[in-house]
């Protein structure tokens, strides 16, 4: 039983780390701030979620388990709120999203 839980826990933690890695890759390689946010969004949804799931499988203390679940619950509210604030701030400051057809060039957003 312990070995199976360990295996599941490791699988979960490693796949969480993989999603965080791919999210970071997206953050670096996607074309503009708006599309980069989608990469960042992966790290705090499935990335963090799988890490916590893996830790949940390791713990035997129910108080610790509840705290871990709380972390995911709080992330589920704070992460979209900050993403939204970031996107809105970028739009408000005049940054236009990159599209296939080309993007509006501004001082903050030099052509690359």
């Amino acid at each position, binding site marked *: 039983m312990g070995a199976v839980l360990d295996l599941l826990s490791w699988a979960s933690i490693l796949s969480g780390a993989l*999603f965080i890695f791919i*999210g970071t890759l997206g953050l670096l390689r*996607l074309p503009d701030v708006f599309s980069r946010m989608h990469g960042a969004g*992966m790290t705090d949804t499935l990335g963090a979620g799988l890490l916590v799931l893996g830790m949940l499988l390791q713990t035997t203390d129910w108080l610790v388990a509840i705290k871990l679940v709380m972390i995911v619950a709080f992330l589920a509210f704070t*992460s979209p709120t900050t993403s939204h604030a970031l996107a809105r701030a970028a739009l408000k400051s005049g940054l236009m999203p990159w599209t296939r057809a080309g993007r509006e060039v501004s001082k903050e957003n030099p052509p690359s």
Partner: protein
Amino acid sequence: MGRALSLFMVLFGFWLLMSGHFEAWLVALGGASAVLVVVIARRLEAVDHEGHPLHLAWKGMAYWLWLLVEIVKSNIDVARVILASPAGVSPSLFRVKASQKDELGRVIYANSITLTPGTVTAGMEPDGTLLVHALTEGSRASVESGDMDRRVSRLMGES
């Protein structure tokens, strides 16, 4: 008063679970701090259906589970796009109507869009029109299909 009482129960329960202390003196201190927070929240007029939407936690279980599955699916989609061709994405900014009349419903819908990778809500107009940025044609189509919008309306009891 009912809301204040249920806010107190939630805060006190939260305190107990976070502290893990069950000695009388410490529990009394925890209870006192929960009462203080409720008093402050009432003075801030934050104890309303928006500040304390506990009714949705249980009623919405089916919705939260559906959203969880959507989050997993869109994570895999975005991961695939990033690994395949980050330069081949076709992002777009578009408007979509949130059909909820209640502000809390609109916020839940807008946050659900942002929570699923591939789509971010960048703004909301007074009539409930959302400004959404999508990473690919597919993620745009999934918002425009209106499936999530209908589910949030159902969660809020508006349809």
